[in-house]
Structures are given as C-alpha cells and as structure tokens.
C-alpha cells in the first residue's frame, strides 16, 4: 500500500450514543482522489461516520487519520475537509456569492480576487451570474450546487457529501450524478459520498463500503461487490441474487464438488473450494448468469424447471422458475436481443432447462 492509498485511515473506530452503539469497530482506508461511497440502509450509521470525519462527533474508540495526521484533537474548523450537508445548510441571510465566499474570510483576499474566485466557482457549478441572487430564490438543485461550490472554493483535501442528491427528483438526480462524477474527476479531490441508493453508489464510485448496523460488511469496487459479494447480506443488498445451500464433497486431493439444493452436484476446482468434506456452504448465482433453453443443453451443468412467472422489462425479461429440491423459485434474467426460443412466448407452467457455468458461482461466507 502506498501512502496515497491510506489518505484517510479509519482505525478501529467505534461510536456510542449512551448505551446505543452507532458505529462498531470500523477499520478502512480511503485513497487520495478516490470517489468513495458509504452505502447502507437508513440508520446504519453512515451520517455518524461522516460526521466523525468532519469532526462534529468524536469516536468513542479508535482513531481517524487524514493525510497521516491524527484527527482526534483537531476541531472541525481546522480539519482539511469540507462537507455538503444533507439539508445543504445554505445561509439564508447571505446571497449566493457571499455563501460561496463564506470560508474565505481568513484568507484575507482583495475584494477583486475574491469576486473572481466566486465567479470561477459559479462557472464550475454552471450557475454563472447567480452571485447576487438571494438564498431563498433557489431551487433544490441550485442549492445543492451552491453547497458544493461553497466547500470546493476552499480546495479541501477531502469533500464529504451526505446524501446530496436525496432531495432531488429522479431526472435531476441522474443528471447531477453525471455532473458530480465529472466534477470530481476535474478537481481531483477525494470524495466520501453517503447514499442509501445502490444504483447511485454503483454508478458513481471507485469503491464502496457496504454498511449495516454500524459495521462495514465489505469494501470493494462496484464490479467486485456485484460479482464477488462475500456475504449474503451484501449480495442481497446489491442487485438480485439466488442463494443455494450446499455441502462440500471431496474425494481425494484433486476432486472437489458442491452438492447444492436444486442444482445437483457442481464440480469445483480445489482452488475455489478449500473447505473439508461435509462442510456446509452457501453459494449464490446472479440471475443473468443462468441461460434458459427449451431442450437440455448438449454439455455443461443444467437442471429442468418450470416457469412460475415472468416480467417483461424492456431490454431484458426476468423469469422465476421453480426447480425440484428448492423451495424458493430461481430468478433468471435474459436479454431480449432476439425473442427467446424462436419467437414463441413462454407461458406459465412451461418446462425449461436452466444452465450455468461453475465459474459464475459465488462462494459466500457462512454466517
């Protein structure tokens, strides 16, 4: 690990409010210039962790380092971080320009230089000429941009964003996601971004920490989280996932397989499977990793099932099949590039073959 990979270092941090533990033993590193997201359901402690980075809360245990400096004795107004608040917190008694220039007081700039910097920021957030507008004349999207400009004008080492797009409607939110990503690339500042929207996290982030109940479940790239989730909780939080219980079957050193409910015996390489014979395992398969066919495929792994329901979703369709030996139906997603099985629509109750390759199987930690 290079020092710039540990630009923000969170070491064994816990935070309790009275008897309630909001953050439990979190350790992770965030790299310089990274777009890092904290993803988790409401109440899992995302805001609390962000507020500890900003200095509004201090950890009950553990230590936070930013750029190798321990932060425990550094008050918020001396930290090299700035925050975009969930409510934006635009000062109502100041106009747009004064809001953006708020943090420049200590820089003792000439008025002309100050105005120039504000104008640059207004250009950056695509609101040129808005400097004299009153704060109460702004729409939600504009407030969000001004909160961003007010923080960025100070060139922080880290920008913290607490669900900054949560208050915007869907269309504006998608537009702002693209702009935010482009802006982060442009300014090169480390972003720590809080969201409860998995799609938003996947689109924007370099890496994501999935949180639940005050703990970090997994830190990975979007693709890593999607393709190789480590636990059932992470797998079901991001996208749709089919889960199968299974048992390890070993026969000598070279041969290993999993006997999974509904899927039969799946041969595995010994590198994939390290557990001893008879050990229970939990495996998972994404819906799009299955293929459907009317006849049994010539080679490979396949089981026969019956179609319960299907949902047409435009570019693809989602099918639910019941297979013998498994209680819940299996979700299968197939692209609608050419209509399935030579043009005839699938009807409920129809028998279909499900096939998959062993490489697409995800081994989960048994929890």
């Amino acid at each position: 690990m290079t020092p710039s990979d540990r630009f923000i270092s969170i070491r064994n941090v816990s935070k309790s409010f009275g008897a309630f533990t909001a953050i439990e033993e979190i350790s992770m590193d965030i790299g310089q210039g990274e777009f890092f997201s904290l993803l988790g359901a409401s109440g899992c402690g995302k805001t609390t962790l962000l507020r500890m980075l900003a200095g509004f809360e201090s950890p009950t245990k553990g230590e936070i380092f930013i750029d190798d400096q321990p932060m425990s004795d550094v008050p918020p107004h001396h930290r090299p971080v700035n925050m975009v608040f969930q409510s934006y917190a635009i000062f109502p008694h100041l106009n747009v320009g004064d809001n953006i220039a708020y943090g420049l007081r200590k820089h003792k700039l000439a008025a002309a230089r100050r105005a120039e910097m504000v104008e640059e920021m207004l250009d950056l957030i695509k609101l040129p000429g808005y400097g004299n507008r009153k704060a109460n004349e702004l729409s939600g999207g504009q407030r969000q941009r001004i909160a961003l400009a007010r923080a960025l004008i100070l060139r922080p080492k880290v920008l913290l964003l607490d669900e900054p797009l949560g208050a915007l409607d869907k269309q504006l939110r998608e537009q702002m996601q693209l702009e935010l990503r482009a802006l982060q690339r442009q300014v090169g500042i480390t972003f720590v971004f809080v969201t409860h929207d998995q799609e938003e996290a996947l689109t924007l982030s370099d890496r994501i920490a999935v949180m639940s109940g005050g703990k970090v479940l997994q830190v990975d790239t979007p693709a890593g989280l999607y393709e190789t989730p480590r636990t059932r909780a992470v797998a079901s939080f991001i996208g749709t996932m089919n889960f199968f219980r299974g048992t390890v079957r070993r026969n000598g050193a070279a041969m290993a397989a999993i006997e999974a409910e509904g899927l039969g015996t799946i041969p595995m390489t010994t590198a994939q499977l390290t557990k001893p014979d008879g050990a229970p395992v939990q495996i998972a398969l994404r819906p799009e990793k299955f293929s459907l066919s009317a006849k049994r495929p010539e080679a490979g792994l396949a089981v026969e099932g019956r179609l319960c329901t299907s949902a047409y979703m435009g570019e693809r369709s989602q099918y639910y099949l019941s297979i013998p030996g498994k209680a819940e139906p299996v979700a299968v997603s197939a692209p609608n590039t050419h209509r399935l099985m030579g043009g005839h629509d699938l009807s409920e109750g129809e028998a279909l073959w499900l096939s998959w390759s062993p490489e697409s199987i995800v081994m989960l930690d048994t929890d």
Partner: protein
Amino acid sequence: MSSYIKRPNRALQVYAVLFLIVLYVPVLFIPLFSFNDSIYVRFPLQGFTLQWYGELWTREPVWNALWNSVKVGLVVSVISTVLGVMAARAITRTRMRGKGALVTFIMMPLVIPGIIFGVALLVLLSRMGVPLSLYTVGLGHLIICLPFAVATLLPRFEGFDPSMEEASADLGENGWWTFWRVTFPMVMPGIVASLLLTFTISFDEFIMAFFLTGTDPTLPMYIWGQLRFPKEFPSVLAMAALILFVSFALVFLAQWVGRKGLEDQA
C-alpha cells in the same frame, strides 16, 4: 385574485372594527385631554392648549423619573435578552434531561402574580440588608422580563437548522465567528423584538417597582404619586400621551423588523 380566504366577510369586519374601538378609544382620550384647556378631565372640551406640555417641560421630578425608568429599562432589556439568548440556545442546542421541566421553570414568573414575587423579594432583600434602589427595581424587572425574552427567542432558535452552525464550523470559523456571522444575524429579528418587548415591560411595570423602589421613583411610581394632586394631573396626561406615541413607534418598528427578518429567512 380572490381566493377563498381573501373573500370579504361582513361579520368579521364589524367585529374587527368594534374590537379596535373598545381597545383604543379609551386610550385615545389621553392625548385628547392632554390638549384640553382645563385641569378637569371631563366633557365638554374647553379648548386647545399646549400649556400642559409646557409645564411638563419645566418639571424636574418628571424628567428624573422618566430617566430612571429609561435607565432601568435599558439595563433590564439588555441583560434579560442576553440571558434569553443563552437560555434559548441551551434549550434548543443541547440534549439534556429534564429540558421540559427547565422551560416550565423559566416561564413560571408569567403565571405567578407579581405581587407575590414583589413581597418575596422585598422580604429577602431587607433580610439581607440590601437597601432599596433602582438596582433592586431592576432585579425585580429582570425576573418578570426573562420569560418574555425566552418566549420571544425560543421559536427563533427552534426554527434554526443546527447544521447552519456546523456548516460555518466546517468552513473554518470557530465558535465566536460562527456566532457573529451565522447565529446572530439569523436570530437578530428575535433579539430586536426581545429588546423592545422587555424594555416596554420594564418601562411600565408597577407592582415590582412599588415594593422595591427606594428614593428614586420610576415613572409609573411617580405618576401614581401624582394622581393624588388634581393640579398635576393634566401634565401627567401630557407625559402619558408622549409615552403612548413613542410606544406605538417602537411597536411598529419591532413588527417591521420582525417581518423583514422572516422574509429574509423564508
């Protein structure tokens, strides 16, 4: 634009006019008789004169009493507003147990009769050997004014998003600068309203002053003393008319400042 709410309502208009008449006509007699050329307050009016205002001008004790009241009022309004700001901030900004009980306790003087507080303070002060003076009057007024200050300021602080102050800290300002640049301007209209209100309350307070005044009377004490002398009465009316005028001006000012503040924050 004729929305449902803006439609004229005859009964309501009549009621409003009657209400204003009952409220203000008796008060209007004061300026009216202050210009009347007779020492008796009765109809018919005897003719216009500025004599009482002239006499008022030459009377040293009236001006002393007025000055005493202004001094007490200024000090009391500033102290009670500062304490009110601190109390309102503490109540809205900290998570503490028994907050509700504390607020009730602060608001108590609103419902406890002034005469009880007056007597209690008098007993306490004389036991402690503190001589009665304008300071003791001020102390009494402080007790009465504090709940009004808190009641005026509390909604301002309650409607104040705490992340405003955090945003200021986040942008590099310490507690002191955050107070000056964010908290103070945002609660400014509340502070002005509190200053005006507590000043007015102290200025015309009588019961506490009655128990706690030493040798220097406040204006209400002085006026009360003069009521026994019919000859003095018209110039008391002249004084009252002046006070009435200033009070109206202050109230309108306070309203205007308050409205302006709300517009800015909307």
